[in-house]
């Protein structure tokens, strides 16, 4: 039963669970595309804005999900996922860091809530606004379904630079072809700190996810050296307890056209 303070529109599906709840902002798929990288590791910047170059604001925080391709861990690596969002400057960017060792293409999708007053040519259907007058649902965009949240833990931080990955853990999912995003319990750490010269050395604590089989996503970690590495400085990483050995894997089932 509605209570005082409820608002918006609620649609229930069978089982009395809310299918649409107009109180909340529902995240839709703003962008769904392939990410091409020519280098083994890189920081990829994604512009997130509408055709009028209006960026998202902190009121419309996006995040990024990466899909899995292939099952060969030696040739597929994604995932150092790092979504940064600048909520202050005009040229707001969402950036993700992706490590690939061979494959040059990774699918990704950017998720964000409905953005007020963004221009869309196909304006039809229904909008739902919340009590603040913010759009919380539009009927003409695609919404991903979050179907699983899986905790993982127990990865061991490498004691020295090592690659291929040092430790691994498996997560059983509904379908390993779905979209995923890894959310560390603390922070998805990555770095390019150079404890020796202060510049030019690049070291990565890297966690990856890849499809192991149809229902298994494998998460592994390693310590990857960049263009130059002496090995010094690694103890600092370990001693600062920056390595995250646990996290959460979110599984999104892409919304598909049924007819």
């Amino acid at each position, binding site marked *: 039963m509605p209570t005082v303070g409820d608002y918006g529109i609620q649609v229930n599906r*069978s089982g009395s*669970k809310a299918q649409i709840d107009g109180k909340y902002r529902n*995240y839709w798929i703003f962008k769904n595309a392939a990410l091409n990288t020519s280098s083994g590791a890189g920081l990829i910047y994604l512009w997130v804005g509408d055709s009028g170059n209006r960026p998202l604001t902190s009121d419309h925080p996006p995040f990024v999900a990466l899909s899995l391709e292939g099952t060969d861990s030696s040739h597929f690596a994604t995932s150092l996922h*790092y979504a940064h969002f*600048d909520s202050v400057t005009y040229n707001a960017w969402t950036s993700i860091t992706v490590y690939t060792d061979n494959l040059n293409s990774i699918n990704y999708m950017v998720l964000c809530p409905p953005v007020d007053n963004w221009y869309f040519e196909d304006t039809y259907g229904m909008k739902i606004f919340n009590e603040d007058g913010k759009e919380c649902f539009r009927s003409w965009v695609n919404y991903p379904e979050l179907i699983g949240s899986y905790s993982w833990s127990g990865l061991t931080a490498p004691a020295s630079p090592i690659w291929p990955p040092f430790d691994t853990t498996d997560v059983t999912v509904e379908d390993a072809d779905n979209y995923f995003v890894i959310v560390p319990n603390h*922070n998805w750490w990555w*770095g390019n700190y150079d404890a020796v010269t202060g510049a030019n050395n690049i070291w990565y604590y890297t966690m990856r996810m890849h499809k192991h089989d149809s229902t298994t996503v494998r998460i592994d970690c390693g310590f990857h050296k960049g263009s130059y590495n002496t090995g010094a400085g690694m103890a*600092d990483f370990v001693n*600062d307890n920056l390595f995250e050995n646990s996290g959460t894997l979110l599984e999104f089932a892409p919304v598909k056209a049924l007819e």
Partner: protein
Amino acid sequence: MPIGMRCYDASGDVVFDTESKVSRLVYKNEVSANSSSNATVDAIDGENIAIVTYSTDNSTFGAGNYSQGTHIVTRSGTTITWTARNNATHCPSVDTMILIFLYE
């Protein structure tokens, strides 16, 4: 008789069907670096949630040789707790966006 709502796109394809579910953003908070606190989110009582965090501080990103230490976020019942990093040399505490999604 199906229950729920169905939406079509401009091509007549179903983009949202009667059994589709949408994960809903039920909590959003941008918390400051070096601050720790908690909040009660009644909407998550007894429900599955997903927590997403990321830095909103651009000042240390890419400019220095540092990573960023977003807050540690945990859930206990309806209480969401965020704890700042200890400002480790290589991983300073930063402003953090906390997003909590409900899915059921």
